[in-house]
């Protein structure tokens, strides 16, 4: 592989890291409160609210069931509004964030649902407010599960980001399609796949290690 190819590969790797990193961070920031609201408004929980839960749940499900490639094209006006352009790496971050947020919110919700209801009751019996229950019980007790959820999301985002080439987003997937497939350079394709595998492996093992570190059971 030529020097130029290696530079292309590095550039694509950086673009992928940028897309996955920024959209992952944003999706975590939006997904955590969304996951908390989905959980606490559900039936029998500390802030049960049927209408809110039903509406949010419907939005989350609708977003999750839209294929990513369609979502990406469908929200082009929003993307243009937010980042001023509908092509390029920054433009890809918008649909990636929008796709990952409901996904990770559901994972967060599931992780926090695992918190022992008895522990929540114990804290209610101490006179905790709902906000205190969230910050002192749900989030810290679910921390390993929340970290595992972020790991799953980052791995999924790495896969989604390969489709970002459709809006000129660059990245490893895009490189593989343009050089490996369209220009018949199997060595580039192979290199892209190897780098992606390594990236996912590293993400997963760092995530697993953090989960282990924070697990006290």
């Amino acid at each position, binding site marked *: 592989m030529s020097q130029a190819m290696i530079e292309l590969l590095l550039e694509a790797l950086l673009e992928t890291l940028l897309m996955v990193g920024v959209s992952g961070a944003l999706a975590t920031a939006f997904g955590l409160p969304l996951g908390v609201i989905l959980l606490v408004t559900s039936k029998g929980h500390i802030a049960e609210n049927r209408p809110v839960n039903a509406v949010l749940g419907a939005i989350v499900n609708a977003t999750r069931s839209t294929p990513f490639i369609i979502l990406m094209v469908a929200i082009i006006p929003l993307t243009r509004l937010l980042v001023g352009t509908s092509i390029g790496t920054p433009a890809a971050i918008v649909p990636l964030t929008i796709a990952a947020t409901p996904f990770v919110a559901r994972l967060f919700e599931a992780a926090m649902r695992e918190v022992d209801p008895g*522990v929540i*009751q*114990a804290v209610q*019996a*101490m*006179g905790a*407010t709902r906000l205190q229950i969230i910050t002192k019980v749900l989030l810290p007790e679910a921390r390993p599960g929340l970290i595992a959820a972020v790991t799953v999301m980052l791995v999924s985002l790495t896969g989604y980001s390969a489709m970002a080439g459709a809006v000129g987003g660059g990245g490893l997937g895009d490189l593989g399609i343009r050089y490996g497939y369209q220009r018949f350079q199997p060595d580039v394709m192979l290199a892209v796949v190897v780098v992606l595998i390594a990236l996912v492996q590293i993400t997963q093992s760092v995530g697993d290690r953090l989960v282990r570190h924070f697990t006290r059971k």
Partner: protein
Amino acid sequence: MTPAMLDIVKLSKIYETPSGRVHALDGVDLSVARGEIHGIIGRSGAGKSTLIRCINLLERPTAGKVRVDGQDLTVLPARELNVARRAIGMVFQHFNLLSSRTVFDNVALPLEIAGAPSGLIRRQAREALERVGLSDKADRYPAQLSGGQKQRVGIARALAGRPKVLLCDEATSALDPETTVQILDLIRQINRDLKLTVLLITHEMSVIRDVADRVTVLDGGRAIETGPVFDVFTRPQSETARRFVRDTVGLALPPHLTESLVPVGTSDRPLLLRITFVGPAASEPIVSALSRRFDLDLNIVAGRIDEIQGRPFGTLAVLVDGAAPKLEAALNYLRARNMPVEVLGHVPSHDRAAS
């Protein structure tokens, strides 16, 4: 008389279920004096869990009042209820500790929630840990502790905020017998040292015997019997209470006797009696007295002496053989001496009493 620390008036809880309304609590009245350990006993489904959870309003009663130190909790708005709850410590069957927090941070949690300054938190949490004898485990996580130690942490956590009342929800039901005794001793000691009022629920009469001053028997959502532990043990009024007492201090009669029992009056074979000795009567030579006075043959088939709150309490099962009028006179003699006696029936088969 000082007003009760805990006063429950006509408490009802109705659950609406698909199969109809269920009265989990049906007009329960209960009063717990300051510094008293009050036990609530009932089998599963009697409503005891609902009752204890209605006291700090983890469950909202359908009707009735819950007064803690004179304050009715059922009328309080959410914010004031949270403040009132800080005066009620609660210990749970499954401990319900936060696995992500150390022992110390678990004990500090109620103070943190109350917004106490950090110096006070440290002082009171340390003091509470010391009281349960776990100062050396402050930096451990709950998963590193045994069941008994976890419950000690649960008790320390309940005490950290210096509550007026301690609620124990089946606090020893998940523990082995030896650990149960240790935890009950601890509760007793805390009750004495801090003059803390304790309400505990259990399905084990032995827990009541070992730790409570007074007991209330709950059945079908109603408080069917209440009184000092010694009285309920020695003179249970309700069938439910009798069964609980029998299961705990009662005699296990030899199966060949219970199987062959026939109702009183249907045979002239020996009668099986269960005599209960209470207080001073426990030391009377009752068997020889009956034998001599009424010319009866007595054969002891089972016997046991227990101690409840430091007072002797014995049960004796005897086969009595003799002429019917003399048997009748013997029973009257026992009753006149205020000795609870139960006539269980005749034992028709081969027996040893008539030999």
